[in-house]
Structure formats: structure tokens, C-alpha cells
């Protein structure tokens, strides 16, 4: 876990006793990270679909157009579009606006390479389906090495620090 993510966990750890859901899956890129979930049911384009300077979705007609995934646990079906996918997510890392972690359903070369070069924990082949559990704003801890995703539902997280 990087320093920023560790700080975020200390400050926004769920209140003790808050109900959590655990999802199990396969590691794509190892490591641990935590953050607020940003969930979209639309696949994401890298090149032409995101602004690599602020981590926002720019594709016309996209479910979360205008929102930024910087520092968020990005939950999405998968990658689509141009082969610039990895290069643009690579640039989000260099620009400090990468997602904290990635959780996705459909494996492709775009997303595998993109997750590898973004160098954030990434998981797939999850059970139960992340879309049935995680909603935008939930607090999500990803431990890709252990193959677990721990979800605290929105409203049950304490931000008191």
C-alpha cells in the first residue's frame, strides 16, 4: 500500500461493528489499497475516453461522464476502444490521478496491460458479482494478494479519523 492510501485508510476506516461484505476473486496485479468506490456499468475507453490529466471520463453518452476515478476504487465491466488504453492509464499514474484499485469482470489484453502499468491492485473473476454488492460511495478495501475485497456500505463508514 502506498503512503497516501495508508493515510486514507486511517482517516476513513469504517466504524467498528459496521457490517461488511467480503468478495473473493483472482489477483491481476498484487497489493493492497482502499478507497471510495466509483461504479459504472459501462465499459471504459482509455484513449479518447478519459482525461489522463485529471482522471475523468470524457466519453459522450457514458454513464459517469465528467466524474473522476482519481483515488477511487474503480468498479467497471471492462475495457473497450483504442489500444491506447494502457498508455492513458499509465499516464494517470505518472500524473498522480490513477484509481486506487481496479475491479472488473471481463479480462482483455487492454485491461490486463493497463492494470499492470497503472501499478495498482487489480482483481477479476470475483464472487459474488461485484456489481451486486458494490455501489458508488461504498468504502472498499482491496487485498489482491489475499484475493479479497471488503465492502462497507455507504453511510456505515466513519470519517471522524
Amino acid at each position, binding site marked *: 500500500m502506498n503512503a497516501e492510501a495508508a493515510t486514507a485508510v486511517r482517516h476513513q476506516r469504517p466504524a467498528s461493528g459496521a457490517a461488511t461484505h467480503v468478495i473473493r476473486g483472482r489477483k491481476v496485479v498484487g497489493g493492497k489499497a482502499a478507497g471510495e468506490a466509483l461504479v459504472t456499468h459501462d465499459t471504459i475507453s482509455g484513449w479518447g475516453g478519459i482525461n489522463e490529466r485529471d482522471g475523468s471520463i470524457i466519453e459522450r453518452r457514458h454513464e459517469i461522464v465528467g466524474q473522476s476515478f482519481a483515488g477511487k476504487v474503480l468498479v467497471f465491466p471492462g475495457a473497450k476502444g483504442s489500444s491506447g488504453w494502457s498508455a492513458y492509464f499509465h499516464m494517470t499514474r505518472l500524473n498522480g490521478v490513477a484509481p486506487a484499485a481496479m475491479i472488473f469482470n471481463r479480462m482483455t*489484453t487492454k485491461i490486463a496491460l493497463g492494470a499492470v502499468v497503472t501499478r495498482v491492485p487489480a482483481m477479476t473473476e470475483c464472487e459474488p458479482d461485484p456489481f451486486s454488492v458494490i455501489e458508488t460511495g461504498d468504502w472498499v478495501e482491496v487485498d489482491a494478494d489475499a484475493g479479497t475485497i471488503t465492502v462497507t456500505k455507504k453511510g456505515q463508514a466513519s470519517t471522524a479519523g
Partner: protein
Amino acid sequence: MLLTDYEKEMRDGQHGRAKARAMDLLIRYGEALGAERLVETTNVAGAFNASTPSVKPIAEKGMAHVFSELNLDSDEVVDVPHVAVNTCQLITGIDNDNWRIQGASEEMIEMQRSAERYLGRRGVNMFATCTPYQVGNVPVKGEHCAWMESSAVIYCNSVLGARTNVEGKESTGAAALTGRIPYWGFHLTENRFGQHLVEVAVEVDDMMDWGLLGYYVGEMVEEDIPVLDGTTHQPTLIKLKHFGAAAASSGGVEMYHIPGVTPEADSVAQAFGPRRIEGRFRYGEKERRETYAKLQSASDDKVDFVMLGCPHNSIEQVALIAELLEGKRIHHDTALWVHTPRALRQVAERNGYCEIIEAAGGVVMSDTCPAISRRVPEGTRVIATDSAKQAHYLPAIAKVQGHFGSVRDCVATALAGTWQGGLR
């Protein structure tokens, strides 16, 4: 992952630091995919050039920094050796001759030229086009490739029967230096069969209709493999180039079958092989009209910029544009850029097509396109294009309104200064 002795030697640095870093990336990437091993590739098409403002801060430190960071995902800066296998540069950021018209600075064009000298000496062939298959890189059926550029990948798999996944900047960099790529996805025969049947119930003949069909198919099947049934007209390179680019933009289609046309299926049954038909779609007049409407993002009819040639135009397309423009003059408020590979541009010059287009007030561009360069004529608010791919991407990238139509509609628009298209 299972590695051969030679791959282990490369990983361990016995063939230099660059190959070691390349192997490190290929192993991380292969394990992320769940690949069991790597496969030897003989044909790499990637993006290596330093030609955009975002690369400039790295390029100022030297091309070794650019290649190490962006083509190998390596924190260690390595000396880049000659490529190990046939490798070419795809489309790039600036036109080496028309850079002033594009609005690029002297500094940016010098960065690109300097990068090209560096890469050229290391064996990266400077095709500088999204369509390497139009200018001499035509892989053979069954050849394992490592290609970027979604419109080229879908052409490579579907029309040529060669085998590639959609690779990225980092994996093509690693493949160029090692001649290896993960053995996954489209490299395996069992992953190349159809998944969805698309019944084509309207006539699809001209280029615009192939683009519309491609855009529809991509939206329907996303990343799966469609099989088209019912097409009645024999497509050409131009039409399949356009169809594939559209399908790869609206979805993530990397391969399709048109039984009797594409090389891996003579019949619908052969296209599906051992797979069952997961989904059935019908493309009729209603779907055609809905798709056309989705590609229109313009409310203003006054058009500032007409963009033709995405993917890069074939020589026949340049010839048609010249024919439509001959003896005419485009509207003084409207710019027209026609894009074709540099190697074909030479033919277009020799044939006199460039002279006709330029006399009409148009520009023949090579090496790049507005979506890649993020450069459009100054003050552009509304564009018109014959490319479903460009109509899909350019409004988001350049914050413009977009009209989509046939090449004839677009040329008529350039002459009139207002949108002349419409679905007939």
C-alpha cells in the same frame, strides 16, 4: 509462467538490461492475463514516437527515458538495442511536412524528428500510419503478431487471418526487443470462433453503410466475435477497413467473420465451430437509422472543418476525393484535411491527386490524424467526417460537434460550408 531457456536468459539480464526489463513486463502482463507461456512473434506494430505534448517532459531527458518508461514500463532507464523482429511505427502525432498547418510548434516537430532518427537507427520502420497493411506490412494467415491500433488489429485477425490481440505501447515495446508476446486470446485457435450471429437484413454496399453496420455491431456484441450473415455485396479493403474501425470504436471487437469472405470461415457453421450461438441480432432499416442518429452530435449546420481519411485513406479514396473536387473551390470558412499514409501520398502526388485537392483549398495530410494529434484548425466548433471512428472520438477529444456522412456528403459540405448530408 513457463519460460524457455532463452526467455529465462533474457529475463536474467544475460542479453542486456533492456531485454531484462522487457521480459519483466511481459511476465507481469502474462500473469495478469493468466497466460501459461509466451509465443514467438515475427511482426510488431506499435507506438514508439515522441510526438505529443504529454511526452515532452520525458523526451527532454532523452529517448532512452521515453522508451524505458512508456514502452517498457521500466523505472530503470535502459539503453535501447536494435529491435529483434520486424517492427513498425503506427500513426504518430504530427505531420512531418504539414506541421505548421496543424498548429504544431517548431519545438514539437524537432522532438518528433529527433525521436524518429533514434528509433529508425534501431530498426523501427517509420510507416507512420494506422493502416500498415496498406503500405507493405501484410501478415500471413496464422502469423503471430503484436499489433496496436484497434482498427489494424481487427483487420489483421479478421481479413488477413493473422493472429494478434490488441497490444499496447508497453507490450509492443517489449515484443519488439524480445520477439515474444503472451500466448493468450486470439493467438489460440479455440478463441477465434464466432459468438453472436448478426443477420444483415438491409443492403450494405457503400462505405458509409459498412461504417454504420460496424458501429451497430460493436454496440451489440461489445468485445465478442460477431458473424455476419446475409451481406449481399462483396466488400473491399476500404469497406472492411471502415467497418472494423467502427466496430472497434463503439465496442471492442477484435475479430469477426463474414463467411465466404474472411479466411477462417466458408460457412456460418464453420465460423462458430465448437461454440454455440450466444446471441442473435438483426440489423434492419430501423437499426440503420438509429445508428446513424447516434453518430450525429452536431446541432449547428455551419461546418468549420471536414476530416476525411480515418483509418488512413487508400489511394482509391484519395482519387475519389480529387475527382469530386476537380475544378472547384472549398468554402472560405471551411477547412478540408484528407489523410493518407505517406507512402500512398507519394503515389497521390505522382497521379496529380494532391495538386487537385490543394488547388481546391484542401490539405493532404500524412503521419497523423486529428484524434491522435488532438489538433484541428483553429476555432473549429463543428466538424464533418466520413469516419464513424472519428465521429465517435473527436467530439470528446476536441470538444467539437460532429456530423457523420458519406465521403460525397462530406466533400459537398466542404464546398458549401454547411452540412449537406443526411440518411437516404
